[in-house]
């Protein structure tokens, strides 16, 4: 993750990320799987750095992740993942078969449209404010439960070693951070989703996924 001291390759990829952001976590996994080196640029969401004018030029939605690749600037993890899939075809994340491809795209959407936006930082702050302190946890668990129940049903018949077969695919890239945050931050009981629970164990053993974990990022607070 450290910057190269000697002459760096021209225009290295830059990823704007926050250690704990599950959206950024997805892109870190994808980059690692594809063996793409990148510069890590931390954006401290708790300190409000996403509202810095410089960052807003990169992503006017004020979200991480954002990717800069030469003169291409992309916000949103789904857009970034599909860009990486085109630009760096090694370790393809989408199968050719249309049915399995659609399944992967659907699972990715369940996570990034159906679960995570309903419990990101800004929404949680709103829930705490509007509904009451301590309400954000049950709220988050509800959103996760709905999405995990659907994902579990979708992959029950076709999961292999990974979500949709024996190779890591896009569904895994999106599921892994959501399951990780469910388990480590939101006290979700994974016994209701046995396939997802098993996948979590597989992801935790995979080097590309390990290197992408929040605690391993340069801006993670050092452990006490």
């Amino acid at each position: 993750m450290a910057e190269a001291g000697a002459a760096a390759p021209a225009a290295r990829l830059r990823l704007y990320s926050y250690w704990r952001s599950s959206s950024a976590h997805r892109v870190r996994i994808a980059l690692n799987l594809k063996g793409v080196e990148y510069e890590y640029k931390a954006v401290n969401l708790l300190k409000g750095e996403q509202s810095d004018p410089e960052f807003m030029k990169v992503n006017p939605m004020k979200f991480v992740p954002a990717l800069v690749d030469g003169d291409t600037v992309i916000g949103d993890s789904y857009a970034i993942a599909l860009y990486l899939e085109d630009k760096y075809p090694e370790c393809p994340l989408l199968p050719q078969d249309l049915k399995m491809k659609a399944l992967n795209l659907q699972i990715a959407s369940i996570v990034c449209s159906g679960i995570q936006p309903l419990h990101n930082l800004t929404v949680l702050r709103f829930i705490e404010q509007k509904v009451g302190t301590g309400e954000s946890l049950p709220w988050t668990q509800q959103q996760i439960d709905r999405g995990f129940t659907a994902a579990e049903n979708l992959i029950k018949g076709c999961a292999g070693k990974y979500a949709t077969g024996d190779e890591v695919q896009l569904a895994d890239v999106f599921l892994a951070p959501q399951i990780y945050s469910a388990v480590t931050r939101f006290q979700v009981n994974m016994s209701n989703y046995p396939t997802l629970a098993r996948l979590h164990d597989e992801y935790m053993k995979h080097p590309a996924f390990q290197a992408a974990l929040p605690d391993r990022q340069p801006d993670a607070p050092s452990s006490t």
Partner: protein
Amino acid sequence: MASPKPVLYGAWISSCSHRIHIALNLKGVDYEYKSVDPRTDPDYEKINPMKYIPALVDGDIVVSDSLAIALYLEDKYPQNALLPKDLKKKALNLQITNIVCSSIQPLQSYAVIGLHEGKLSPNESLQIVQRYTDKGFKAIEKLLEGCNSKYATGDEVQLGDVFLAPQIHAGINRFQIDITKYPILARLHDTYMEIPAFQAALPKNQPDAPSC
């Protein structure tokens, strides 16, 4: 023997369904439309475990989620391609698409359902929709700064347009969004309203729309 027509499950008022009507129309795909209420139709869960609409059944393939459906259609029916080959433009389309389908519409949906279930007052519900719509529209307007092409990312209709059109339409018609704050989006809206594929996809033109 001709293969069966794809079937789109949706509802007239759903902006997610609206997107797929547009995509199917643009690609000239002849399809069957079935209106469904996921809250009350017990069989629908078998088609889409998330119980969201839309879902597309195309032969033995069942796809739900509008983005997954749109990308499936892009592969299966490559005529009138919705994604450019240029990676930068493609990424911009996908980013606009995802701002709509991850950052605006799910919060709109939460606010609308909250109102129906009595958890939010009409005013609170409207404020939530407007807050997230304005945030998303402001960002998209910024991303499209300097855009002088006919559509969002060029002179052909692309995926960004397919997802933008229903969101702008709902914003103006249901949620009192002042679209004049977003001149590029306002111009695009006027342009979309003249395209037959978009007109046919409008909520009021669906068979299950209330007549009044």
